[in-house]
């Protein structure tokens, strides 16, 4: 039983033996979902990626972007703002049997990191008991955030070097730190809002 498990693991990590060379080139991609979120909502990100193609099976990938949030809440009147770069590294594996076909089904992992600053403010309000005017604000609070992602994605060749692809990502915070007494932040560049677990991307991919 243990031997069968080890053999299955070995098969997962090994490459098909054929005449196709190991290095198959690079691909660059751009995520349209994050850019759309940034255009039509209070937060989002511009994200690009550089992917290495190893034998159409393994795809080491570096992703980088700029995450931004500017939110002015109508109910609580809390203003939140941040903008910072973030970075992710990881690897995808093509799960299709036909590794060298035009389409791919990926299963992958990512490690993400960002260092960012947040501004949180609210217009002055009155202390309900003592009636003093109260200012509320946190300026340039330095924070950092580490997280992991499990990625399931598809990639379809359209024509020439152009591919389009979707991915769904399950995100898990690994560690975080916030300056001073700020317990947590609302939007983390690259990760999303604090309670984010799932996210999706729609990628325009060009083989180079």
């Amino acid at each position: 039983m243990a031997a069968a498990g080890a053999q299955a693991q070995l098969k997962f990590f090994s490459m098909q033996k054929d005449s196709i060379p190991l290095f198959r080139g690079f691909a660059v991609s751009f995520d349209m979902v994050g850019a759309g979120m940034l255009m039509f909502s209070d937060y989002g990100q511009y994200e690009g990626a550089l992917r290495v193609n190893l034998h159409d099976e393994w795809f080491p990938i570096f992703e980088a972007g700029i995450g931004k949030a500017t939110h002015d809440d109508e109910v609580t009147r809390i203003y939140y703002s941040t903008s910072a770069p973030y970075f992710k590294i990881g690897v995808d594996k093509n799960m299709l049997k036909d590794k060298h076909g035009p389409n791919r089904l990926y299963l992958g992992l990512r490690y993400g990191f960002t260092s960012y600053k947040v501004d949180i403010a609210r217009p002055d309000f009155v202390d309900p008991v003592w009636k003093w005017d109260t200012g509320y604000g946190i300026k340039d609070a330095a924070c950092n955030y580490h997280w992991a992602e499990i990625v399931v994605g598809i990639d379809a060749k359209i024509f020439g070097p152009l591919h389009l692809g979707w991915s769904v990502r399950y995100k898990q915070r690994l560690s975080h730190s916030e300056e001073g007494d700020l317990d947590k932040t609302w939007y983390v560049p690259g990760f999303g809002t604090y309670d984010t677990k799932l996210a999706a991307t729609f990628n325009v991919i060009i083989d180079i």
Partner: protein
Amino acid sequence: MNKWMAILAMVLMISCTSIDCPVNNLVRTRYQFTSSAGDSLKLLDTLSVVSTRKDGRDTLIFNKGVNVCKFHLPISYSHPEDVLVFYFDGENLHETDTLWMKKDDIPHFESVDCNASFFHKLTDIRHTHNCLDSVVIVNPSVTNDDAVVHVYIYPKIGD
């Protein structure tokens, strides 16, 4: 293919966000009458606490508590020192004590969906000694955790 579409639809359906504000958003200071032996003490007299508002008028912040052992008082959002006047009323007792409590005020943020609040760090307490023997900060961190006792009050009476 249909199987993959079903899985994707299920994943997207469970990705709803929620508003995650704390159930208790009150930030209050908790006091406990304590004997010199360190036991909690029940105050048999009637206790009221008054403070002074910005406009100079008094505001009642604790009204005629009887058999009080532990009690909560509001804490100002962002004033460096709260001045609290304790009124002790019994059959043969009509005394007041004034308590000056210094603190640092810390803006607390949960989410843009939750109201702004302040946590506090108590830094110093001084008081008059008509009924009060001593007042001690036992837990300087005042948060929305209602169970924590922050200040022990050792009265002269009851010992």
